């Protein structure tokens, strides 16, 4: 699929890597529906950046875990642009979640955003894609889909579910709609990383460096355009998942 003239919905598309995904799709000629939950100010700023590429931007608030809110968002997008061709399930939470625990807040939040979110959005966007006779879905996972992260059980389960949903979407919506996942490695320094931890993360990758949001966004763009790739996950991690014995390489 060529992005020029199409319409894309990017969940969590206002800030961080989601913002760069929005801009990358806009640069390729797509109108962008910028979903956000709490980041209204960032969404307005990103919308202005999107419009600077000469395409339409529509910031819409919605908690992706809430099907009523998602339906209203999808309706607004279709009213404005006539339909949706591309969905990027990017919205994510990232909170530590000690285990065992007596407080289910973090678990429920993670499952709501990472499992119900992509389900709701895809479930409600897919009819427009099927009606238009084409569509591409890219959902964002990370390395916790493959390896346990201490203190992040809800997050890891949610990101794993994204791979399972991707396979289901690909099969159930074929041949009209393709669905793939991206698995991101280190791309943007979290606020609580000191220099030492930042460097240790770089050292775990085969390329000895962090990735960039632009590199993540370009992988999303490739999967939107790759007409024979579906049900697939593409890992953009500098080889980090293969680097677990790197220290022994000498």
């Amino acid at each position, binding site marked *: 699929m060529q992005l020029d003239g199409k319409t894309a919905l990017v969940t969590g598309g206002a800030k961080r890597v989601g913002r760069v995904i929005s801009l990358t799709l806009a640069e390729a000629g797509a109108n962008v529906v910028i979903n956000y939950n709490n980041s209204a100010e960032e969404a307005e700023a990103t919308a202005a950046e999107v419009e600077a590429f000469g395409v339409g931007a529509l910031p819409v608030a919605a908690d992706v875990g809430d099907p009523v809110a998602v339906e209203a968002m999808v309706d607004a997008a279709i009213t404005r642009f006539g339909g949706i061709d591309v969905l990027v399930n990017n919205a994510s939470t990232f909170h530590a979640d000690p285990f065992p625990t007596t407080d289910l807040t973090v678990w429920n939040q993670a499952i709501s955003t990472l499992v119900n979110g992509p389900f709701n959005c895809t479930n409600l966007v897919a009819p427009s894609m099927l009606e238009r006779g084409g569509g591409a879905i890219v959902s964002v996972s990370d390395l916790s889909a493959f390896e346990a992260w201490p203190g992040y059980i809800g997050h890891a389960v949610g990101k794993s579910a994204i791979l399972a949903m991707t396979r289901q979407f690909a099969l159930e919506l074929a041949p009209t709609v393709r669905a793939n996942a991206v698995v991101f490695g280190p791309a943007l320094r979290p606020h609580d990383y000191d220099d030492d931890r930042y460097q240790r993360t770089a050292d775990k990758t085969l390329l000895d460096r962090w990735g960039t949001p632009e590199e993540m966004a370009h992988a999303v763009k490739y999967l939107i355009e790759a007409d024979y790739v579906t049900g*697939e996950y*593409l890992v953009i991690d500098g080889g980090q998942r293969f680097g677990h014995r790197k220290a022994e390489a000498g």
Partner: protein
Amino acid sequence: MSLAGRAAIVTGAARGIGLTLARRLVDRGMRVTLLDRDPAVQARAESLGSLARGRVVDLRDIDETRAVAEATIEEMDGLWLLVNNAGVFEKTPLLEIDPSAWDSMMEINVRSMVLLIQAAAPSMIAGDGGRIVNQASMAAKLGTPGEAHYAASKAAVVALSRIAAHEFGPHQITVNSVCPGYVLTEMGADTRDPRQIAEWTATSPLGRLATPDDIAAAVEFLASDEAGYITGESLNVSGGACTW
């Protein structure tokens, strides 16, 4: 950033996926050397214009492969992209695979990639990094009866790519493999049994076979600057036939 002006080698480039890829890279402004054992590679390269040239090489021959690879890299004054595309396919039940047929499959499908990587990586290390893309197959992960030697050779390509990614990573050289599903080349369209094409088509939820350009597009993506954080991966281009 653009690939224009950078140097690439594509093996098995006289026809099919290799030729389609070479044409695509030339269209992006790359200087491309097409390698093939078929002398027709010269004329095919000429047909792509002044950015392409063809060289005949028998990848089974260790000395010849090394000599041609080194001469090519010297002539191109370095290398950004090596695409190890050449490979052979043969279907034989496991109990009937002759050791010489096994060896021959491994020589072309795996050993030739090692020789070309050994020739190419030093110049990438001396330069600004580079890209190595190795043609594997869905057979590396799934495979069908009669493909023991082929599937094993392609699984070896996936593993080889991963370890190369380890060893060359610090030099910003990425190494990945592509795992195509069933591809219908122009030659195949004329020669394949329609019943077989229908069986292959049924393996993809998309309801069609891959075109050579589907595979070439994946290689072009992995060759780009923007894909510089993807390494050690095997990318399925299988129309959903393989999802891991």
